[in-house]
């Protein structure tokens, strides 16, 4: 009779212990007088928000953020289920054939974090990965609109005189879900190469002009691959077997997966990488809608960024917004406004210090100033008059100029259009790609393996650590003239052919013959022996 009672007591004790364990730490977290707030939206900026919400936890602020995609974030903010949203594109844009109406609740945009759209690719030639691909805007647009379909296209070769490009099909990998990266990329294409982009859109069954969209249109049969999430597209490109793929994704994904990104040609004639400083320089050309009466106040006008004449500017630079409420409505209260304001003050100033480590670029001074003004519109905020010089934002110095843009290194000469390209790796792939020397007559320093015809010397594999130079190998010198030539031809990557030819038939026949050689004799012997026995 005693057993059940003891067991019951034990269970009660356990429950109490668990409850004490659970309640203990959480009650401590509420010590400061901040009310928890929740937001949702862009997965593009989620890495930064995730770090910042961890940092403000020490002040007792609890910020919950769900990275469900910017379209979902805008919808949820409209429905009033979240206190703030983050997005790359503002409300009111016709996406596909649907207009995203602005919410009825009071709202304002605030710059959140800047970054460049990177083009991560997986390409190899002669068994060695190519890490220094350069692309001009036209070529890039043509690749993502299915006009250029092979990696050895003359236009790509023109951008990359130092590379021997394989004859491989280009597989553009795009986002299958609504995403901010798509919106940023299509903004650029629509602005710069409108006719190419619109022609593609019409083929995909959209109306022209196509404009910005967060859902990339795909045409079946073009060989485009659609994958969900940044993780999906970068993961697809990062698969070893998927050589020939290229995708647009946040720079941080290319850094972490260890794959290179394409250098994009800017208006100054330099090919540049989307590093934090290059993006910050690019964004100096950003115009901001400063018409306070406009509902699109503080939305970006990026034409100046795309056409930035600075040789360091990365043309596909942009920033994402935080959408904040300006009225006490739905579930939003003044107490929540206080937390949101505190969070905003943090990320506009100190938070930007970590932007670069996280794979983003810090906001330049013009955007921070405008953002600080927007914070005051949040109801319930503790208005701070922040001295811009003490903001601790790494992009501007005490005198209020953009430090990062000043200190940003100029691109090397080898990144200039027409010059023999740099061999150094990009993105997450730091290994060099030796030049094949084609057209690189005046290079001198990095031309290992260049055939120096006439002199009879081949300096194969001297300076390079990779040793995988495409022209390494046996050299044949004619005895009478002393002219040397490379015996090994350039290895060309060919995709396995889908069609069934004579060669394949013979291969199959050989395989069957081998199997037959092993199987048929014993089976035949056994069969005959049995027959003999029976008869």
């Amino acid at each position, binding site marked *: 009779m005693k057993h059940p009672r003891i067991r019951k007591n034990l269970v009660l004790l356990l429950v109490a212990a668990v409850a004490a364990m*659970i309640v203990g730490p959480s009650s401590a977290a509420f010590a400061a007088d901040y009310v928890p707030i*929740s937001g949702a939206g862009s997965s593009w900026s989620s*890495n930064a928000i*995730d*770090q910042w919400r961890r940092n403000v*936890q020490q002040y007792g602020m609890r910020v919950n953020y769900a*990275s469900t995609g910017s379209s979902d974030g805008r919808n949820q903010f409209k429905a009033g289920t*979240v206190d703030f949203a983050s997005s790359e594109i503002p409300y009111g844009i016709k996406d596909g054939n649907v207009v995203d109406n602005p919410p009825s609740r009071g709202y304002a945009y605030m710059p959140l974090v800047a970054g460049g759209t990177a083009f991560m690719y997986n390409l190899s030639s002669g068994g060695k990965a190519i890490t220094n691909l350069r692309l001009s805007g036209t070529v890039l647009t043509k690749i993502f609109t299915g006009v250029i379909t092979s990696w050895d296209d003359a236009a790509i070769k023109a951008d990359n005189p130092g590379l021997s490009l394989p004859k491989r099909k280009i597989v553009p990998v795009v986002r299958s879900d609504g995403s901010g990266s798509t919106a940023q990329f299509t903004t650029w294409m629509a602005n710069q190469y409108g006719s190419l982009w619109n022609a593609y859109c019409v083929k995909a069954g959209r109306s022209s002009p196509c404009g910005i969209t967060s859902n990339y249109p795909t045409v079946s049969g073009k060989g485009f691959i659609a994958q969900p999430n940044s*993780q999906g597209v970068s993961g697809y490109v990062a698969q070893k077997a998927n050589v020939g793929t290229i995708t647009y994704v946040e720079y941080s994904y290319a850094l972490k997966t260890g794959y290179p990104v394409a250098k994009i040609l800017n208006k100054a004639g330099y090919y540049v990488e989307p590093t934090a400083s290059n993006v910050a320089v690019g964004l100096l050309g950003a115009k901001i809608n400063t018409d306070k009466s406009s509902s699109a106040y503080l939305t970006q006008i990026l034409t100046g960024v795309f056409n930035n004449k600075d040789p360091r500017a990365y043309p596909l630079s942009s920033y994402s917004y935080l959408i904040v409420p300006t009225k006490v409505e739905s579930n939003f209260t003044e107490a929540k406004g206080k937390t949101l304001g505190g969070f905003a003050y943090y990320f506009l100033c100190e938070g930007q210090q970590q932007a670069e480590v*996280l794979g983003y670029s810090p906001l330049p001074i013009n955007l921070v100033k405008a953002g600080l003004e927007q914070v005051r519109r949040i109801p319930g905020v503790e208005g701070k008059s922040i001295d811009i010089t003490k903001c601790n934002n790494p992009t501007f110095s005490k005198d209020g100029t953009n430090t990062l843009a000043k200190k940003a290194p100029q691109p090397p000469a080898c990144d200039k259009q027409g010059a023999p390209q740099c061999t150094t790796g990009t993105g997450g792939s730091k290994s060099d790609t030796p030049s094949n020397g084609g057209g690189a007559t005046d290079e001198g320093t990095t031309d290992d393996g260049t055939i120096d015809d006439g002199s009879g010397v081949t300096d194969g594999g001297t300076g390079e650590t990779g040793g995988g130079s495409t022209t390494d190998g046996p050299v044949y010198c004619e005895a009478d003239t002393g002219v040397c030539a490379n015996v090994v031809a350039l290895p060309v990557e060919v995709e396995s052919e889908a069609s069934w030819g004579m060669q394949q038939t013979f291969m199959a026949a050989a395989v069957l013959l081998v199997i037959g050689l092993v199987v048929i004799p014993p089976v035949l012997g056994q069969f005959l022996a049995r027959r003999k026995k029976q008869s």
Partner: protein
Amino acid sequence: MADTMLLPVVEHATVLREDFPPLETKREERRVSGVRISDVLSAVGAAVGSLCLTTVIVTQLAPISGPIAFAAIAYIIFMVLYAMLVYLDESRPVVVDRVILVGVHTLALTVFATLGFVVIFSIVRGAEALPFLNFYTEDMSLAGPLDPLSDGGVVHAIVGTLIQITIALAITIPLGLTTALFLNEVPSAFSRFVRTIVEAMTALPSIVAGLFIYASFILLFGLEKSGFAASLAISVMMLPIMIRSADVVLRLVPMTLKEASIGLGAGQWQTVWRVILPTSRSGLVTAIILATARGIGETSPVLLTSGFTASLNVDPLHGPMVSLPLAIFQFVKSPEPTMIARGFGTAAVLMFIVLALFVVARIIGGQTIEVKERRAEGRRVFWATVSAPAVRATTAVVRVVGPQVTRAATATGRVVGPPLARAAAATGRVVGPPLSRAASTVRTTGDSLFATAAQAMRTFFSTVVTKVRALVTRITAKKDDSK
């Protein structure tokens, strides 16, 4: 007993006559079980042969690369070689038998290997995160993308999952089991309709369940995004599975048992409570397990309804609460390798929790009546052996102390007893009869109410059906007229 009595008779009838000439060829009996050395040798030989042959083909003959292609070719060659080896010393039916046996075993192995791969893959990828003790005791509120694995953990997701699944079970177990009972005990047009609806609901995409709760409870009723809303969405997913499998289990209860119970005078309710539910207990637990398995791993309904937080939240009614699948989903989306390792580690934790829950449920549900009695018997034996000396000692003590105590007690009793007894008797006389009357009324009312309700439902639906049918006939008649 009857069988054993019959057997000798049969044996006598089939005894062979001694004077028959022995058969020329002795046909060997086909063995259907047991393993012979030759079976093992031919399998091993075929495996080695196929490996070598495939290596030759892949490296020398055909332009094939990749482990999957290698495995596929090796398997085909293995089957061919195995068939050949068996053919060398067996007849054709035996060869077919063996080859099919190997084929079936491979399929079973493939299923097992898939499961093993999923489990091992997530453990291996999460191996970086799993050894940290803080992974099980901390939440992510003080761990961001840049923090190492020695900071932060998933206790918030573990607690969230347990709370959400507990609430969901509290909703679905009573609702699901009573619905299953209704479907079985009250057969009518309505119950058939409900069954159809339940079957349709099993195919409901999980995101729709989330959308339903999001649209109704969160947008319309203004409920916060919370653990409770997530539990409701999970319940929508779990309910049809539980009803469906409980319904099947209840149908398996032998009719004879129910008839016996009713024949002994039990009402419908008593039959359900005393006969049907205990008989199908283990099956019902399986139904609950199946529903839990479905609910605990759901991401999409939770995604829309629970919100996301990195902090521990034990209040299911207020604030976002994260569950393990949602935490995995958010972790692996990050570009940071540490976050991805956390995601896979969380997947391993989720699998472990599911396994633990299943083992517990199996232990509880596996208690059939026989097992229970065996355990009770064991306990009795144990107490008899252990307590015998104790009893003897007690008896001795009692024998010594007893008489005095008894005497004292008797004395007390003589004084206190009579008034007490008188009072009790009086109370009993007053309270007793109405109480027992009330009890019997309740019992009969319950039974009759159950029957009446069932009857009413049946009549209601039959009238509805007749009316609809009449309407249809009238309409068709009118159509004919107009023609």
